[in-house]
């Protein structure tokens, strides 16, 4: 215990802290500029100088550690003069353009000058003038206003781990720049903007668009993009989102944001938002023919649209039976929306035909892993990653799929942890990971090799006999790893030593694994590794409420609370609460729906907040199925590719316009709050109205009603309330009971016959970029400016072979189709594949893909898709 005295106040300190922190803990404010609670100490601005008894020189409170018996004064005449002097120095070259500066009103420099008095105007020399840099579409830099606190640089290099900006030059010429000197070439997290105390680094999105004090409304909510579930503060004026900022202390992201969370909000205010229900008046065209859609629909009233949907669904049910209808739920919608949706499908339509895009990887993988390790096996705390001594990454770049989770991996590395990766991931390159990059499509051999070696090294404990039985069967020699995967023995051994010596490891699994050929086998191998090193698993999730929709029962085989439909006990439970029979038969997965519709026995589909005509692999084929189905309802905020094929389109409110909850990948339930007013109905309300029209009792007045019903019905969420969530108690295993004893035999499927990346052919791989996320991000102009159009990423060898330059147009074709787009030469890409994204209209990578289904995880296998590239465009 240390006691220090600050301004005659005795302060007792439990642990070593700086004088500044000690003062703050006692409510004594010492002015600071370069100091920031999230960042490394710096001591550069000199504003926090204080007097220490018996020490002749003034000391910076932000760097000086409090010592027992220290006597500190922070408010003397001398110190006030010093602060005035420092502020004067900061202002002599400052443009003093507060009336024009967006930061005015929340500028730390302005506040301090206000407090200590303005400079006396003694500076008669020429000011150092630096023009504002408008070279970047998203971030404006005004180095004239910069006070060189270097917070942004420390943020970028430290917490963000991107090191994309630095101080250029020195002394009075110092200024901050990205590498190019103009435009940024970075992750656009904007965390530099958050920490800038003045108006030197700002977002261009709201430039001159508002003054901070005019912000009428600030709402704390959860990010709509990925499964991390970051807390966002949404600032609104005139019912338009003006800015999104983080909050220091928020649980998952603690003051940090990624590019999508910070800059991706513009879709909410997009002019392309649907406003009125639409009813089809002309025959369906292809989903691409966006321009023509104006004449395909007529606007309708809600009453008309709702009764039409109710009538058509009733008729089809009547005519073809319950199984002729299916529903697709949305990982973008709240738990409440999804709960109502599945209840509607099960109760009003009497079918378990309900699924979602979680089927493309997450759902099956989670199921598989939980079947081995028990429910909740993937519900691990994200910030916990940084305390791991090792993070093992397979199947995708976590920093693009789940950026804030990615930052925790970087933090782990900064804290001295080891990062091991299977493959090359740009976003963790700066962690200098230990990498093993096997030849494309031979990852399973490498994983087998690792399991074999770990097994031999560590032995089996007997704790999980079911899994051990499988592990015993695995035996792959280092020779095979060397020959097949083309990995050096030395590298393999180094990797293995680090892996086996770890005491607190984490494993991160991405979609490349869950969509691989032999996905279930890959997952078995990764589970085996996890078991042998006693780690914990993080399953990447690219949609905000993917976990939530599963927990709400939006799957053909599970009921809310992640309870199997096949168990009578659970069906009975819901039947008694819902007062309706629940079919015993498992429903169709999203892929089975497409197949069944294709063969004609599925007649109607209700798609809520999803875009299967674009987001499913082999999307062209999904599109033609959806085009030909007898009745298609699409409920969305935009007229998506799928919407253009609908018979009835129902406009929904977006994430920013409604209340509810999301469940993130840690299975943390968090409140989504309405930030913006807009006319219209929430997803749950539209569905309830349809259900009522069909004679069902769906009488909910607000989301809390629904949530309370969930927590009454779902054993997992038993007795949970909004209040508990507010208190931060909405974290797995909640108050209810996780699912126990419902584990089945471990089934898996070996990879089928497959290609090998070393065969000289080119394969298609899907890029999952940081700046985009399916259909939403393309309506956000900032993200579109950063990553404006589809590209094909190739390696320089491929480029040389095809004599291609950066930016040249090529035609990429597979047996499924082709598209024209420019190439980018990217050194993170291998010469065995081409990378395309699935984010841009008319240029979705998924349209070139064929797929098979892994029989265990029911996820699509996106591998072995051979493509060709030819230079130039097709002659018209």
């Amino acid at each position, binding site marked *: 215990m240390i006691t220090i005295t600050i301004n005659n106040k005795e302060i007792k300190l439990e642990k070593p802290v700086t004088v500044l922190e000690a003062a703050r803990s006692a409510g004594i404010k010492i002015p600071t500029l370069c100091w920031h609670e999230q960042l490394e100490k710096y001591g550069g601005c000199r504003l926090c100088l204080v007097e220490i008894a018996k020490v002749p020189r003034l000391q910076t409170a932000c760097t000086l550690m409090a010592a027992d018996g220290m006597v500190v004064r922070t408010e003397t005449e001398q110190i006030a003069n010093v602060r005035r002097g420092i502020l004067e120095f900061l202002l002599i070259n400052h443009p003093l353009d507060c009336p024009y500066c967006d930061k005015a009103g929340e500028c730390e420099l302005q506040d301090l000058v206000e407090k200590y008095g303005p400079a006396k105007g003694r500076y008669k020399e020429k000011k150092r003038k630096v023009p504002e840099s408008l070279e970047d579409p998203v971030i404006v830099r005004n180095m004239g206003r910069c006070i060189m606190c270097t917070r942004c640089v420390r943020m970028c290099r430290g917490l963000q781990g991107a090191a994309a900006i*630095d101080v*250029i*030059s*020195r002394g009075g010429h110092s200024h901050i720049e990205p590498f190019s000197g103009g435009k940024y070439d970075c992750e656009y997290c904007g965390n530099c903007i958050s920490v800038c105390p003045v108006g030197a680094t700002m977002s261009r999105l709201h430039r001159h668009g508002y003054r901070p004090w005019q912000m009428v409304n600030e709402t704390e909510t959860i990010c709509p993009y990925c499964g991390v579930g970051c807390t966002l503060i949404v600032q609104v004026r005139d019912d338009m989102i003006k800015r999104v900022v983080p909050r220091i202390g928020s649980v998952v992201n603690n003051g940090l944001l990624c590019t999508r969370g910070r800059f991706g909000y513009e879709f909410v205010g997009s002019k392309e938002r649907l406003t009125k229900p639409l009813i089809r008046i002309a025959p369906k065209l292809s989903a691409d023919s966006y321009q023509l859609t104006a004449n395909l629909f007529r606007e309708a009233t809600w009453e008309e649209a709702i009764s039409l949907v109710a009538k058509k669904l009733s008729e089809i049910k009547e005519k073809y039976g319950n199984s002729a209808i299916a529903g697709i739920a949305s990982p973008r919608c709240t738990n409440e929306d999804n709960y109502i949706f599945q209840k509607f499908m099960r109760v009003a339509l009497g079918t378990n035909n309900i699924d979602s895009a979680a089927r493309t990887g997450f759902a099956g993988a989670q199921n598989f892993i939980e079947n081995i390790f028990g429910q909740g096996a993937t519900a691990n705390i994200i910030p916990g990653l940084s305390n791991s001594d090792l993070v093992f990454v397979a199947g995708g770049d976590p920093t693009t799929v789940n950026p804030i989770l990615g930052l925790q991996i970087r933090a782990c590395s900064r804290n001295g942890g080891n990062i091991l990766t299977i493959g090359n991931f740009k976003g963790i390159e700066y962690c*200098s990971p230990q990498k093993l990059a096997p030849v494309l499509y031979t990852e399973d051999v490498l994983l087998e090799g690792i399991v074999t070696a770990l097994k031999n090294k560590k032995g089996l404990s007997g704790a999980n006999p079911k899994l051990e039985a499988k592990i015993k069967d695995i035996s792959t020699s280092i020779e095979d790893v060397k020959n097949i995967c083309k990995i050096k023995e030395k590298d393999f051994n180094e990797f293995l030593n680090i892996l086996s010596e770890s005491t607190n490891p984490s494993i991160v699994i991405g979609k490349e694994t869950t969509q691989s050929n032999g996905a279930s086998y890959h997952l078995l191998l990764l589970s085996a590794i996890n078991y042998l090193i006693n780690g914990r698993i993080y399953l990447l999730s690219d949609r905000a409420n993917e976990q939530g929709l599963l927990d709400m029962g939006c799957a053909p085989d599970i009921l809310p609370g992640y309870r199997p439909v096949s168990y009578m006990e659970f069906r009975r439970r819901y039947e008694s609460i819902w007062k309706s029979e629940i079919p015993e038969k498992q429903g169709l997965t999203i892929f089975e729906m497409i197949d069944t519709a294709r063969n004609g026995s599925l007649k109607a589909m209700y798609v809520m907040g999803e875009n299967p005509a674009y987001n499913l692999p082999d999307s062209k084929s999904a599109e033609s199925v959806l085009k030909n189905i007898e009745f298609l309802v699409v409920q969305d905020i935009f007229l998506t590719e799928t919407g253009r094929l609908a018979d009835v389109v129902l406009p929904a409110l977006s994430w920013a316009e409604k209340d509810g909850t999301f469940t993130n990948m840690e299975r943390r339930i968090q409140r989504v709050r309405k930030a913006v007013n807009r006319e219209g109905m929430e997803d749950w309300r539209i569905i309830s109205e349809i259900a009522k029209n069909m004679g069902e009792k769906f009488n909910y007045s607000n989301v809390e009603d629904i949530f309370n019903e969930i927590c009454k019905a779902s054993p997992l969420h038993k007795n949970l309330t909004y209040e508990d969530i507010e208190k931060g108690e909405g974290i797995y295993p909640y108050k209810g009971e996780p699912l126990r004893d419902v584990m089945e035999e471990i089934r898996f499927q070996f990879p089928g016959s497959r290609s090998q990346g070393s065969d000289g052919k080119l394969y298609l791989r899907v890029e999952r970029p940081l700046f985009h996320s399916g259909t939403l991000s393309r309506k956000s102009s900032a993200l579109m400016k950063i990553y404006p159009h589809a590209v094909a990423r190739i390696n320089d060898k491929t480029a040389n072979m095809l004599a291609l330059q950066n930016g040249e147009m090529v035609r990429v074709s597979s047996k499924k189709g082709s598209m024209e787009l420019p190439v980018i030469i990217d050194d993170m890409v291998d010469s065995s594949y081409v990378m395309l994204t699935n984010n841009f209209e008319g240029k979705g990578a998924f349209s070139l893909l064929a797929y098979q289904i892994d029989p265990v995880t029911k996820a699509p296998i996106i591998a072995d898709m051979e493509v060709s590239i030819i230079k130039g465009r097709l002659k018209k």
Partner: protein
Amino acid sequence: MLSEAAIKELNEIRQKYPDASAALLPALYIAQREFGYLGADAYEAVSNALGVPKAIARGVGTFYAMYKHKPMGRHVVQLCTNVSCMILGAEKLSDFLKNKYGLEPGGTTPDKRFSLVIMECIGACGTAPAMLLNDDFYENLTEKYIEEILEKYK
């Protein structure tokens, strides 16, 4: 891209330090020699070779006065004008270079023969005024002596 010889040299230097990033200053010297000055290509080459982020490499490079950020003439006249040299007439020599050769501080002659860099102290104060021409010291300079020296550098 750095030449193979440069990469080899750099790898040798790299071995002299426990961290790759410590080889940054020597690497920037090598890149400057190879590219003539430190531009984006040079920084990217160094960044790739050492694994130091390129923005950081550029931040470090621009901190130090001896790295050049624009093309230089064939020979670099580095004239000291700090106090000991100044009081013995260094600034007049600078004027002389300007008048006689059109060499402005920071500039290069049109024939790319000479560049002039004004230096802070170069440690030749006892024999001031002094300059470094490329890597060679010239001391006790006079206008006439400078003329003779420059004659030797084509």
